[in-house]
Structure formats: C-alpha cells, structure tokens
C-alpha cells in the first residue's frame, strides 16, 4: 500500500487510518536512515496530531483533497513556521523559520501530513545529494550509487516506500534527474505555476517546486493542490489551475511527439539508455501518437548557459547568509569583515563556494558581457529553439539523463563532467517549460527515465501523454528489490 493512490483507496475504505500511515512512514524513515539517509528531520508529534485531525475529517466525511491524511516529506529547502530549514548547509544548521512557505500552506489546506524534511545537495547545488551536511543519500536500487540530486532525499523517500509522495525543487533537473535515477515519477511544472514564496532560492529565474510520486495521475493530483497564483511571488502565473487529472484520458491519437535529433546522438550518452527511451516512444506511437524528428540546435550550449545564469543568480541569492541575523556565525570574530569571511567559509561546502565564486566572477566588472550577458542572450536562442519545435509537435520526448545513476564519489572531483550530466534537463528551466521524468525500464538493474517536455502552461497535454505511457507499461510498478 505504498502508492498515494493505494493509500487513498485504503483511507476511503476505512482499511487504514492516517495515524497508521503516518506512524508507518515515520518508522520506515527511521529504519532506512542508516542505509539510505533520505529523511534528515522528522516532526513525528506534530505529524501524528495532524493525522488524527485527518482521521476525524474522514469520519465526518469532510475530505479536503485526494491528499488528505497522506504523509509526505519536503525537500529541506521549503520553510515551515517553527520548523528548521537547513538546505543541508552548515550555515543554516540551526535556522528555524518564522513563516510558512506557500506550498506548506497549500498542503495543509489539502490535508496532507508533512512528516519531515528530506536530504538534498547543499542549497540545491548538485546532481547527486552528496554535497550535504547530513552525508549522501543512497540509491535504493544500489546503495553504492547516488540517488541523483539535488532533490535526492525526496526521490529516495518515494522510491523506497517511506512516503508515497514528496516535494522537491528543480532548477536544472533537480527533480527529474533523481526521479530518473531512482525509478519514480518527478515533475517540474511551468515556471511560475507553483509559488516560490518560502522556497529558499538557488537561482530565482529557474527554480520551480514539483512533485515526486509513482504515477503521473498522482502527480496530477498533487500539482492541482500546490499550483496556483500567489500574490507574494511576483513571478507567479496569474492563471487558473485546471483539474489536471481530468485531462488524463489515455488517448494520444492526434498527438505529435518530437524527438530532438541532438539528444539522440550517442556521443556521451549510454546507448542502452537511448534504446529504452526510443522503445518508450514507440509504445506511444503504437497507441496512435505521431512521432517526428525535431531539432533543438542550441543543445550543445545549454549546460554552459545554465551554469552561468544559475551561478550568477546564486552568488547574489546566497549573499544573505552572512552570520548577521540568522544562521551560523563563526566563533571568536572581532570585526565585521572577519565575521563575513569566516562565517561564510565555515558555513558553505565546497560545491556552494565553487558556484558562488563562479557566479561572482561572471557578474564582475569586465566579465559581465562576455559571460553573463552572453548566457542571457543564448537563453533567448534556446527559448527560440523550443518555440519553433512546438510548432511541429505537442510534446518532446528525450532521455532524462545520458546515463543511469553513477557511483557515489565518481564525479565529485570533476565538476564539468557532473554538470554535463544535466544536458537534457536544464533547457526546460532556461525556457520555463514543464517537464516530467517517467521510469521506462532498467539498464543493468538500474532505472532509466524518459523525459517529456511540454509547452509553457500546457501541463495537461504533457500529463496526458505521460499518463498514456504508464497505462500501457508497468515500469513504474517496479520497486528496488531490497527496499520493496
């Protein structure tokens, strides 16, 4: 009974209570702490109390949403009033938020029960959940391998059956890539769909919150609850939220799926991964979809563009961690400059420092035009690529990652190779488009994700295509053998 849908059925039938689900989730999080390290903070007492309220609502027949009474974990970068939020960083290790994020408010009014906080790369900077003060999370399919990142903890929590769903954030693939590595569904909505109020910023023009679950249908339910206009976020889209689940008709006839030629070259990508994605697309073709080859000519430039834009924004977003008002202050400092330098140097890990330096450098006098402004211009070109592509197709299908999950430690000394792993995912963030990663099979025992990208604001078509795939396949029903 570890999927959201199964738990919903169980709750509705009275076979199980929210209290039981929450207690079980908390117990499983503890049980798997040493082996997987997915959940880094539990709020057991509060969660149990909230579950008890959900059970009372059940008795009164006052169901708030399909998520009512269902436990989840939040990536540790979404604030909740009175609870710690660390971003897996030493600099925020003792921070307790004085306010709620919008997603927390919305989950609460949907009746969902947050049982705790999930591991991540520090400040969401990384693709492996190795850069964390809590230590790395591990992949339940092979605990020597990474679970991907930066939303590794939420992905593992779902993959290993701790909670049936979770929320992560995606700046350059941080939901889709760990979903791909751990064999679950992970979705990044259109930029602006879900409010960023209370999401600790990494790169503001790219960050977006989204769900992890086992099925597309479940993601549609979750998105329905957390999406929507928010006046506290100036980049929140002022449009109504459709009932995404209603769009899931299973019908893909008349739908055109584009395969970007640049993504299927075998240079750098695992041929077996590409083959599985091709097979997935063929499945949809046999269901009546039309498949066309498209071109995204600037694909070779997206990683560079992404890392220049994202680190520039991050260098500014992370300036507030200075030891003055909250967070860690180095001990024994005698003047202000010392406080800044020592607090920040002791508080941030190597990857965060690397990105702050890179971002500071590309914004600094003499380099701004050559790097930052240039990257913003190429961002325009990348958006143009997608505008043209979506004239020819409704959905784009690609691998989520060039490879299956790599071994822990394999890329920590080679940032460029780590960054290049994001080649298929960063474009959606640069262009603000919705994207989803779905399990589409195993290579050498490790899950492979198929990514689908949709038009901005058109999650419905994207979800319909992804759901149609899941109706015809059972990849998403596979569980890691040791953790099922």
């Amino acid at each position, binding site marked *: 009974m570890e999927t959201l849908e199964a738990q919903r059925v169980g709750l509705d039938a009275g076979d199980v209570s929210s209290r039981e689900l929450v207690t079980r989730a908390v117990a499983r999080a503890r049980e798997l702490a040493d082996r997987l390290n997915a959940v880094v903070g539990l709020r057991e007492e509060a969660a149990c109390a909230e579950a008890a309220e959900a059970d009372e609502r059940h008795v009164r027949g006052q169901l708030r949403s399909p998520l009512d009474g269902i436990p989840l974990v939040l990536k540790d970068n979404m604030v909740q009033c009175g609870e710690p939020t660390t971003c897996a960083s030493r600099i925020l290790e003792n921070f307790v938020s004085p306010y709620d994020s919008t997603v927390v408010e919305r989950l609460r009014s949907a009746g969902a029960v947050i049982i705790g906080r999930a591991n991540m790369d520090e400040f969401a900077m990384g693709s492996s959940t190795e850069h964390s003060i809590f230590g790395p999370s591990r992949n339940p399919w092979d605990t020597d391998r990474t679970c991907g990142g930066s939303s590794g903890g939420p992905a593992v929590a779902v993959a290993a059956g701790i909670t049936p769903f979770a929320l992560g954030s995606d700046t350059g693939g941080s939901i889709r890539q760990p979903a791909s590595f751990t064999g679950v569904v992970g979705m990044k909505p259109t930029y602006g769909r879900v409010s960023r109020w209370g999401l600790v910023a990494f790169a503001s023009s790219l960050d977006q919150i989204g769900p992890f679950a086992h099925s597309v249908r479940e993601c549609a339910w979750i998105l329905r609850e957390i999406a929507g206009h928010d*006046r506290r976020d100036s980049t929140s889209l002022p449009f109504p939220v459709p009932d995404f689940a209603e769009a899931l008709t299973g019908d893909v006839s008349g739908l055109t799926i584009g395969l970007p030629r640049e993504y299927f070259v075998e240079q750098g990508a695992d041929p077996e991964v590409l083959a599985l994605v091709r097979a997935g697309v063929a499945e949809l073709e046999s269901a009546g979809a039309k498949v066309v080859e498209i071109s995204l000519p600037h694909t070779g430039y997206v990683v560079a563009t992404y890392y220049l834009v994202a680190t520039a924004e991050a260098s500014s977003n992370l300036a507030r961690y*200075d030891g003055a008002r909250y967070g860690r202050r180095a001990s024994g400092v005698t003047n*202000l400059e*010392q406080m800044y330098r020592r607090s920040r140097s002791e508080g941030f890990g190597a990857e965060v420092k690397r990105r702050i330096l890179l971002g500071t450098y590309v914004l600094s006098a003499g380099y701004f035009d050559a790097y930052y402004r240039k990257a913003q211009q190429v961002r325009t070109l990348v*958006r143009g690529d997608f505008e043209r592509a979506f004239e020819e197709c409704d959905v784009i299908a690609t691998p989520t990652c060039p490879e299956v999950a790599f071994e822990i430690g394999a890329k920590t000394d080679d940032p460029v190779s780590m960054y290049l792993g994001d080649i298929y995912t960063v474009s959606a963030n640069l262009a*603000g488009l919705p994207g989803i990663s779905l399990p589409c099979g195993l290579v050498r025992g490790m899950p492979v994700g198929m990514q689908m990208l949709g038009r901005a604001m058109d999650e419905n078509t994207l979800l319909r295509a992804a759901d149609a795939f899941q109706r015809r396949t059972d990849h998403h029903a596979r569980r890691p053998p040791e953790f099922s």
Partner: protein
Amino acid sequence: MSRITREDVERTAALARLQLREQEIEAMTRDLDRILDHADLLQQLETEGIEPTAHAIPLPTPTREDRACSGIDPELALRNAPERQGSAFVVPKVIEGQES
C-alpha cells in the same frame, strides 16, 4: 578567453566574502578554469542584437495595494539572531573604511 588566475580567484573570493585556504585557492583556480573553458563554447555563437532573457515569463511585474500589515513579532524576527541586545541585532564592529 583569458584563463583564470590565482589572482582572479582571490579577488573574486574577496568580493564574495569567502576566505579560502591555500589548498582551496588552487582547487578553485583549477575548477573555475575548467568550467569557464567549457563556457567559452558560447563565444562561438553570434549574439549581436539578441535581447537577453532575464525571465522566462513575458508578463509585466504585478503590484500590490499600499496597505500595511503589523509586521512580525520582534521576538520572531530575532529568534535566530546569533547575537542581540534588546531588540537589536548585534554584529562585531565595523572597521573604518570597510563600509560600502
């Protein structure tokens, strides 16, 4: 494009208020150099006259009514303060010439 030097890293670290150990300076010099080497790919593209994209959404900024709330409880504001006196945050002294 020019290669990253140690001095570049030191200057940038000073701007970012990071204090790097000797070893870190070397590692960062190497890493930044490799990353920017990859980023130099962008120089191949002709971008003359192309509008830069700062935001992925083509809407004007929203505004809010000029109505004041009561602000948060000062205790909540100061709850995370590493050091405070009364309701003020306290930081170590500013050395003359440091102000920006």
